[in-house]
């Protein structure tokens, strides 16, 4: 009964992974300032209370600005890198691509501290820009991974056909390549946006006095009375992340189906 064991293992694994997250919505709607069982009753007041928190609004604005900027920049960088790595042969290509992908596994806190030292050293004031730089470092490898798959599944002769039919390399990029990798680009934008929105370490170290949503949540945990509001906020964030990732995956699959490639991997 190997299969039985494996199924049991999978169920326990999923429980450990998701049960804590399931607690978020439960307490977000619980009519008690203390987070504990038994539940006290249903309320939506924690959600309405969010509207009266100016620091929360600042954090939200910061986070959205950072996430949008990060998504756009790292996706642009990802397009360039993916295009280069799938189309051109250059010396030490493997090593260079490896180094670009390294932040994916590098301890983030080390990267954050190093960046902090660099920024302080050359006198760049800490703020939203420095957080964006940190997030771009974290997100670009993801963008490259997603976009490489899109660019790779693109038949080279499609480009050559357009070139052969009178288009320039530039117009070929606009008319043929871009539309065909667009699902990958959208997928990359959504995933890097989500990663940036949830990112804590870089934002904490590089933000100076600027607070993002995760940093705000962390700081609020010192005050027991605001914990239910955090639960409500967390619920919304989880919902948003899941939605964005699902949309991203939809586009990734559609892109692969469109260019006729095989579905290998991906993040979901």
């Amino acid at each position, binding site marked *: 009964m190997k299969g039985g064991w494996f199924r049991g293992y999978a169920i326990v694994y999923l429980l450990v992974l998701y049960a804590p997250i399931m607690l978020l919505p439960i307490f977000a709607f619980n009519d008690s300032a203390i987070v504990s069982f038994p539940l006290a009753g249903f309320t939506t007041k924690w959600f309405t209370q969010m509207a009266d928190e100016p620091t929360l609004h600042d954090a939200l604005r910061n986070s959205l600005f950072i996430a949008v900027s990060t998504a756009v920049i790292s996706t642009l960088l990802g397009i360039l890198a993916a295009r280069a790595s799938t189309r051109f042969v250059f010396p030490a290509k493997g090593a260079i691509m490896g180094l670009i992908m390294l932040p994916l596994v590098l301890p983030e806190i080390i990267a954050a501290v190093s960046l902090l030292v660099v920024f302080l050293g050359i006198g760049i004031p800490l703020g939203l820009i420095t957080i964006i730089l940190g997030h771009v470092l974290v997100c670009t490898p993801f963008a490259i991974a997603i976009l490489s798959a899109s660019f790779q599944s693109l*038949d080279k*002769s*499609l480009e*050559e*056909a*357009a*070139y*052969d*039919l*009178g*288009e*320039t390399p530039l117009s070929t990029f606009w008319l*043929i390549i871009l*539309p*065909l990798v667009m699902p990958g680009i959208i997928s990359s934008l959504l995933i890097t946006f989500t990663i940036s929105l949830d990112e804590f370490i870089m934002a904490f170290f590089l933000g100076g006095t600027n607070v993002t949503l995760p940093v705000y949540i962390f700081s609020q945990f010192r005050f027991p009375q605001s914990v239910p509001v955090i639960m409500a906020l967390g619920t919304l964030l989880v919902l948003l992340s899941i939605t964005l990732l699902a949309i991203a995956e939809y586009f990734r699959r559609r892109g692969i189906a*469109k*260019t*006729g490639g095989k579905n290998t991997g991906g993040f979901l």
Partner: protein
Amino acid sequence: MTFSADRSTMIEFRDVHKYYGDYHALRGISGEIKSGEFFSLLGPSGCGKTTLLRTIAGFEGISSGAVLIDGKDTAGIPPNKRPTNMVFQSYAIFPHLTVAENVGFGLRRDPRSAAEKSRAVDEALEMVGLKGYGGRAANALSGGQRQRVALARALILKPKVLLLDEPLSALDKKMRELMQVELIKLQRQVGITFILVTHDQEEALVMSDRIAVMFEGEIAQLADPETLYRRPNSRKVADFIGTMNFIPCEVLSQGMDTIEVDAKGLGRVTLSTDQAPPPNGKESPVVGLRPETLTLLYPGQSTQDRTVDGVVDEVIYFGDMTYYDVYIGGTDVEVRLSMRNVPGRPILDVGTQVQLAWNPSALVLFR
């Protein structure tokens, strides 16, 4: 072949060399392709056919030599500025566009009005037998239909040269044979120079006015199909095109117009010098003989030709044809011959004593 040789030159290769790093992919290609010709580049996998085709299209630069299109050196001219269009092996149909958008893609920079362009697209679609398919998504087409879209898309620009890289290799046998005939008709109709890359010798023989047989980056022979088949200039070409029996022989004497050889099993034969391509001196001499130039004599049949006795060793039945492998002249030399299966002509058994008729004019001497 009815192709007249006095047409103008469309493509000229002048000692073209191409290196990929250290790899010498094209090793001194020279030759001419005539205007309006259906020309094939034929050779085994990896011999450089695609590379040569792509030097015409401009996708591949050359290391030395020159490629001329219609008398003009193409050095430095990019693919989008060359009077050539290509049908890709994978067809390269743009998957996000409709059939009509695909076919009309090359007209984007054409100054004509939208109505005129759309008429041109309709005409091109009709020419390839896809009338009314314009609105379809390119993704929703069969292999044969994609092929036609790719053809229409390339021909709508009225190129001087149409380049086709193994265009039929992705189709099944029936469809391939159908498209072969359609391509020949289409080429006659539009009169454009077609250059076809193929590794299928039958396809090349069926379709081409002339064929360049390539091995390892070199053109081994450039000739019309009949010459290629009847008078291959080397054993390698003979082996690649169709089937040929090679019989060891000894060259007895070489005259001005004739060569006297002693072929094992066949005996002494006098050949004219045009049956003997220039010697390459590497291999021991053989005479080559196509299976259909040997005839099995049934009892009571007689012949003006020379004959040789033999013993049937193998019988291979093909429906319309039967192949016999026969030991000849009491030797260990085995030849293959093909006989049409007509009513009243029995299939022979292994071990049967037979008599074969053959004619010295069908022999080719390789030495």
